[in-house]
């Protein structure tokens, strides 16, 4: 089935309910679906579990969701940054649960969820405090840790372009988590710079096939800022 084409960001995220697990794409500003995150803040959903590489920067996007205490748990690899003051405050106040995951394990756990894999043994993290309490196994003389998939109710993703079948292409390093996150949620919501008619994306260049995409919204967001906005 072709994806729903939403009118605007608020329409795109309207189904996100309290207590949902939401994958949010992006690495720094690149690939971060800023307008969808703003709309999620506006829609008022709370008690969210958010999966992202980071835990919000400065006074924008995910950082504001955390500031408004809409997030009960963050699953990420790198929460602590020079401008992650809203995360720092909520975490130190004991008002936000953190699950810290090595970046490659995070990506692979999301990939596993989308690929129907029940878990996998990875060498990353073996012998470290992030493997404490987890099943381990030695295979051919190498230590591995068992990691489980991260499934989600929703994914918020930014791509460059979609056709009306939901086929996606991305732009440069803004691709990052988008393709795996699209596969791992029941409802992948994608913001793109433009939606084009079917046939205008060369099938050989499609990165995310439309089968994974549930909702598309066109948002003129302009060039990605190179740096996070400074504290006001």
């Amino acid at each position, binding site marked *: 089935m072709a994806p729903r084409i939403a009118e605007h960001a608020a329409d795109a995220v309207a189904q996100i309910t309290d207590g949902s697990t939401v994958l949010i794409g992006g690495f720094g500003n690149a690939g971060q679906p800023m307008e969808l995150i703003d709309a999620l803040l506006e829609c008022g959903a709370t008690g969210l579990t958010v999966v992202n590489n980071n835990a919000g920067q400065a006074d924008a996007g995910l950082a504001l969701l955390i500031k408004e205490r809409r997030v009960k748990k963050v699953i990420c690899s*790198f929460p602590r940054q020079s401008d992650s003051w809203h995360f720092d405050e909520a975490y130190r106040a004991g008002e936000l649960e953190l699950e810290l995951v*090595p970046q*490659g394990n995070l990506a692979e756990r999301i990939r596993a969820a989308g690929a129907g894999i029940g878990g996998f043994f990875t060498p*990353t993290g073996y012998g470290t405090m*992030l493997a404490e309490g987890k099943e381990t196994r030695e295979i051919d003389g190498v230590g591995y840790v068992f990691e489980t998939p991260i499934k989600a109710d929703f994914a918020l993703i930014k791509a460059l372009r979609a056709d009306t079948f939901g086929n996606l292409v991305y732009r440069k390093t803004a691709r990052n988590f988008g393709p795996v996150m699209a596969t791992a949620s029941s409802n992948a919501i994608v913001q793109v710079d433009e939606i084009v008619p079917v046939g205008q994306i060369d099938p050989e260049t499609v990165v995310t096939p439309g089968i994974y995409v549930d909702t598309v919204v066109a948002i003129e967001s302009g060039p990605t800022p*190179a740096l996070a906005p400074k504290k006001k």
Partner: protein
Amino acid sequence: MTTFTTTEAALTRDEMAQLVAADIPAGAFVNLGIGQPTNVSNFLTDEQGVTLHTENGMLGMGPVAAEGEVDGDLINAGKIPVTELAGASYFHHADSFAMMRGGHLDVCVLGAFQVSAGGDLANWHTGAEGAIPAVGGAMDLAIGAKSTWVMMSLFTKADDSKLVEALTYPVTGLGCVSRIYTEQAVFLIDGDGVRVRSSHGTTFEELAARVPIELKRA
């Protein structure tokens, strides 16, 4: 066969980076960690034909973007705007780390808080009470490449050796480091223990006295 060499002066940061760059094999696929290792790219030559990987999904990363060529969608793992070289490619995060974990990268250069005589690495967390932990790609990088090299100062500000018998900082990866570049010496770690490849502004004997593990001369 490696033979021990020595210079009168300690290495500067740039000289360390230059030495690491010169040691990277021609045609290698390399990941340079955030901080000091990033400087290595400034000393790689065109003739070496080294391809740089950045874990946020790119091979063929070029130099830091100059003013006027900054593109917010084209950044490195430190979120600094960079450029793309001819032959570059983009891929998603799971592919990027599969590439690393699968042993396809030849060399990874990282910073460190401590390295043990057995090549265990600590570089992600001080373990200090109340510190917010953040790991990023550190654990994946440590164990992924065919060779993991460390660039670090040999001693802390309190004059403690960062090359130790056993880590006191939280582990990033076990038995993964094969080479350490410091201002005073280059160390090789393999099944035979720790050998000093070169000393700089110091002697093998002084190093043996100050570093609390058994050292051999290469």
